[in-house]
């Protein structure tokens, strides 16, 4: 049963609404400081090469140029010229060697943007080519060129992968999950579905390209940037300049799209180095093309087997995953382990074996992107459920229902039991899609996922109650558009019993707000939200303490009310208590912290549910897919702001549709051939499904505030497999490679025709 709430549970208007619709919202790219200089990046024109020389003379002599900076300068100055939150292997600027086409080699700092850009063309870099490897399977071969003969120092992780154990050649990370006897289970299976699946490398295309503004203020480093995880970037920068954490300030104002692509350090190191060597404030704005040469998501090649009984009960699953993680480690150990955890699904599986390996190649480094391994794994895991259903003559929904774990049931030994009713979610989804569908020429695909979300549950928050009873929330969570300012303000208003309009939010600035581990993994509502609740409770406790002293009341007689306290039949607002205690002015500060303990003791902090399906038709002459209906079930425990949940679900599902049908970064030779939005096709208005339905499942079963749990990624996780499944059921052959472009679908149609012809012969 839902409790009666005042502010949470309502579609409160966005806190950033007016700013964003009037153009007043300021993003990092909009910021400037007087006297700032501009940077431009010189990038590698080779996929893999030794740098034999960098001639800076012409560029340095170019009008307006202040400094031309290369990697050796950082070394010479005694800075740490590498960054990376797990492995310190990513040079701020290439040192001795370039490992991908587009890698930053030099930075030109000039008085104007134009002067910087023009001088950048004059930097003359000479190379000696090395053999390059682009494909991950190729990179695993014994004779493949090795990208990192010496591994970078390991500086941190969350204990999710196997660390450096067993990493040879180009293997960047290994993760294994498993139990039971696979061989025995496969041997007694009625059906073994086997196949190879491919998920493309993607570019998140957050519309504000990476940019930063950096300067030193009396030795303190100040950086404004597009960072999602300001505290993670702070750590990288502190290490780089040998500064205490306290003397590095990283601030992200409004961020123009994140989706994971702005997790961790991108251009902050380069920009800060430029500021360090020039003594100037320096601004670096990347173009979209440069942003596409900065980060992507890992592609996956998965060999999978699933074994079933005659009745469709899973006996075993076996996944061998190879991911292409590009030139540097970045977030690979985490993405890799999440792919391993997320590929097999929240099913009862007697025997499981997953080996995921991420492999260095001479391509753009990969990092986080919405779903974080889940969409990659899903294309194999969920599609095999559909393939099995087709072979067993079972209904794919029924097949899933037979195997899904129930609420409170463990599906990964030692991990948190499932905190959702997936069977019910799936029934809702199937019913909303009118499963199994009767429309001629249409086909429905659906799927489920449960992702170990939330990342490491470290979070803090602070609230200041002012003398007029208004409240300011301080949170390290960044506003990426997901609506964190709004949701967290709703939690404050609810907890403290004050009007939403009287809650202000300050966020995303390490110099001002309290520590937040990351803004990702769909964690803000759940984990930061809990920290905010704790902060509110701490503030209330402080108010009561003040009241005891100010009004000479015994603690036992004070009770909390909306916006204040009550004692001896009289109500006092927070402000009255504060002013009385101080005599004039004053405020109360509440601090809240959550860690891996109590409700979050067991990992993951929560599961993020994916339960999305769609109906589509295929133009059999052109192979073009048209989505007629898209349905999401937002199993969020409790929707603190239902409109924002729908927004996350719709956005994640549409992004998933992009990858399912069109998006793919393509390499030819050693070069990315579509590093622009002209040739890398993201979903448009014309791709909106004819009908969109977003459902909510609220069972108060989340570990977050009021029973909430995270959203934002799950709705996209199953879209790829659902699309492939719908196409497969329509054509009789399941696509095992995404995106399902018109040409790929057309080829499937022809293959299906050939199969039919052979059968009739």
């Amino acid at each position, binding site marked *: 049963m839902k409790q009666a709430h005042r502010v949470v549970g309502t579609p409160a208007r966005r806190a950033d609404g007016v700013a964003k*619709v009037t153009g007043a919202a300021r993003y990092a790219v909009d910021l400037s400081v007087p006297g700032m200089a501009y940077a431009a990046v010189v990038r590698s024109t080779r996929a893999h090469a030794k740098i034999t020389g960098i001639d800076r003379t012409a560029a340095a002599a170019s009008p307006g140029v202040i400094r031309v900076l290369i990697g050796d300068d950082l070394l010479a100055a005694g800075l740490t010229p590498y960054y990376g939150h797990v492995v310190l292997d990513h040079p701020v600027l290439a040192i001795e060697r370039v490992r991908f086409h587009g890698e930053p080699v030099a930075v030109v700092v000039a008085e104007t943007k134009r002067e910087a850009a023009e001088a950048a063309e004059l930097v003359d870099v000479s190379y000696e080519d090395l053999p390059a490897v682009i494909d991950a399977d190729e990179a695993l071969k014994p004779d493949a060129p090795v990208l990192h003969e010496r591994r970078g120092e390991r500086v941190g992780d969350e204990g999710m992968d196997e660390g450096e154990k067993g990493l040879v050649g180009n293997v960047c990370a290994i993760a294994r999950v498993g139990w039971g006897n696979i061989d025995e289970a496969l041997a007694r299976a009625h059906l073994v579905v086997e196949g190879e699946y491919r998920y493309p490398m993607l570019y998140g295309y957050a519309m504000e390209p990476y940019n930063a503004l950096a300067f030193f203020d009396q030795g303190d480093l100040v950086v404004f940037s597009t960072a999602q995880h300001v505290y993670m970037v702070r750590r990288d920068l502190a290490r780089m300049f040998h500064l205490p954490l306290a003397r590095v300030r990283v601030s992200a104002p409004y961020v123009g799209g994140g989706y994971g692509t702005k997790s961790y350090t991108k251009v902050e190191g380069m920009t800060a180095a430029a500021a360090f060597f020039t003594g100037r404030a320096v601004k670096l704005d990347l173009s979209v093309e440069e942003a596409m040469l900065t980060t992507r998501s890992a592609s996956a090649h998965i060999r999978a087997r699933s074994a079933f009984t005659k009745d469709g009960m899973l006996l075993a699953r076996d996944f061998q995953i190879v991911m292409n993680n590009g030139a540097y480690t970045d977030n690979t150990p985490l993405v890799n382990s999440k792919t391993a955890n997320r590929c097999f699904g929240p099913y009862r599986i007697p025997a499981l074996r997953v080996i995921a390996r991420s492999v260095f190649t001479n391509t753009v480094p990969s990092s986080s992107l919405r779903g974080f391994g889940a969409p990659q794994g899903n294309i194999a895991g969920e599609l095999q459920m559909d393939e099995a259903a087709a072979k067993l003559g079972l209904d794919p929904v029924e097949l899933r229902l037979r195997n899904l774990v129930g609420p409170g049931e463990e599906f990964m030994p030692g991990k948190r039991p499932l905190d959702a009713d997936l069977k019910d979610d799936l029934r809702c989804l199937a019913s909303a899609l009118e499963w199994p569908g009767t429309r001629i020429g249409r086909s429905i695909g659906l799927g489920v996922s449960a992702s170990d979300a939330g990342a490491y549950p470290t979070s803090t928050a602070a609230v200041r109650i002012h003398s007029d009873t208004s409240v300011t929330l301080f949170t390290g969570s960044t506003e990426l558009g997901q609506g964190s300012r709004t949701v967290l303000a709703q939690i404050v208003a609810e907890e403290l019993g004050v009007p939403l309009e009287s809650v202000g939010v300050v966020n995303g600035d390490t110099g001002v707000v309290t520590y937040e581990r990351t803004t990702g993994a769909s964690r803000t509502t759940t984990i930061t939200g809990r920290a905010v609740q704790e902060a509110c409770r701490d503030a209330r406790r402080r108010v009561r303490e003040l009241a005891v002293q100010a009004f000479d009341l015994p603690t036992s007689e004070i009770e909390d009310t909306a916006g204040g306290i009550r004692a001896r039949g009289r109500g006092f607002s927070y402000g009255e208590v504060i002013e009385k205690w101080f005599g004039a002015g004053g405020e109360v500060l509440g601090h809240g912290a959550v860690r891996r303990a109590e409700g979050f003791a067991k990992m993951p902090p929560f599961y993020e549910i994916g339960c999305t399906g769609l109906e589509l038709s295929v133009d059999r002459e052109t192979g073009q897919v048209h989505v007629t209906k898209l349905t999401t079930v937002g199993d969020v425990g409790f929707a603190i702001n239902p409109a924002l949940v729908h927004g996350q679900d719709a956005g994640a599902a549409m992004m998933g549709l992009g990858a399912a049908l069109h998006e793919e970064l393509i390499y030819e030779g050693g070069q990315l051939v579509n590093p622009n*939005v002209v040739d890398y096709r993201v979903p448009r208005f014309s791709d909106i499904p004819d009908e969109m339905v977003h459902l909510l499942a609220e069972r108060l079963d989340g570990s977050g505030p009021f029973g909430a749990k995270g959203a934002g990624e799950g709705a996209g996780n199953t879209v790829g497999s659902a699309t492939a499944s719908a196409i497969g059921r329509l054509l009789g052959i399941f696509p095992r490679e995404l995106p399902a472009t018109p040409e790929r679908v057309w080829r499937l149609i022809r293959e299906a025709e050939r199969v039919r012809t052979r059968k009739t012969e």
Partner: protein
Amino acid sequence: MGSREIHLRVNGGERRVVIEDQTLLIELVRSLGLVGTKLSCDSQVCGACTVLLDGRPVSSCTTLAIEADDKPVVTIEGLADGAKLHPLQEAFIERFAFQCGYCTPGMIVSAKALLDAYPEPDVATVRHWMDGNICRCTGYQTIVEAVLDAAEQMRGAP
């Protein structure tokens, strides 16, 4: 290289500015502090930089600033009437038709041009007109709804 003085009419205000020939309209408007207009794809595909030039929506990233000589330019900052938001702005808020907000100025300006040309658009017209504006956050549906709402609102208004 060439530079010239132009008579600029942005959001109802008038001024004369000296610009170089290769100056792009987005560079000009942003240099005036009108940074609501955003650069993204830089190739006329995404629409984040949309402004109205002489009533028509253009990609300010690929339009020379000299084109604005003596022609009215409307940017996102020119839509609200003081504190009173334009019906499109109201509808975007009401429908949650944005998240990160980076595409929003271009989206709203493009939608304004649409409603100027077609005061009573249907869904197909909205989708076709807006197809050149990319949003990565919302999935678009709420934007279509907001534009239709605003159209209705504007027809109802005296």
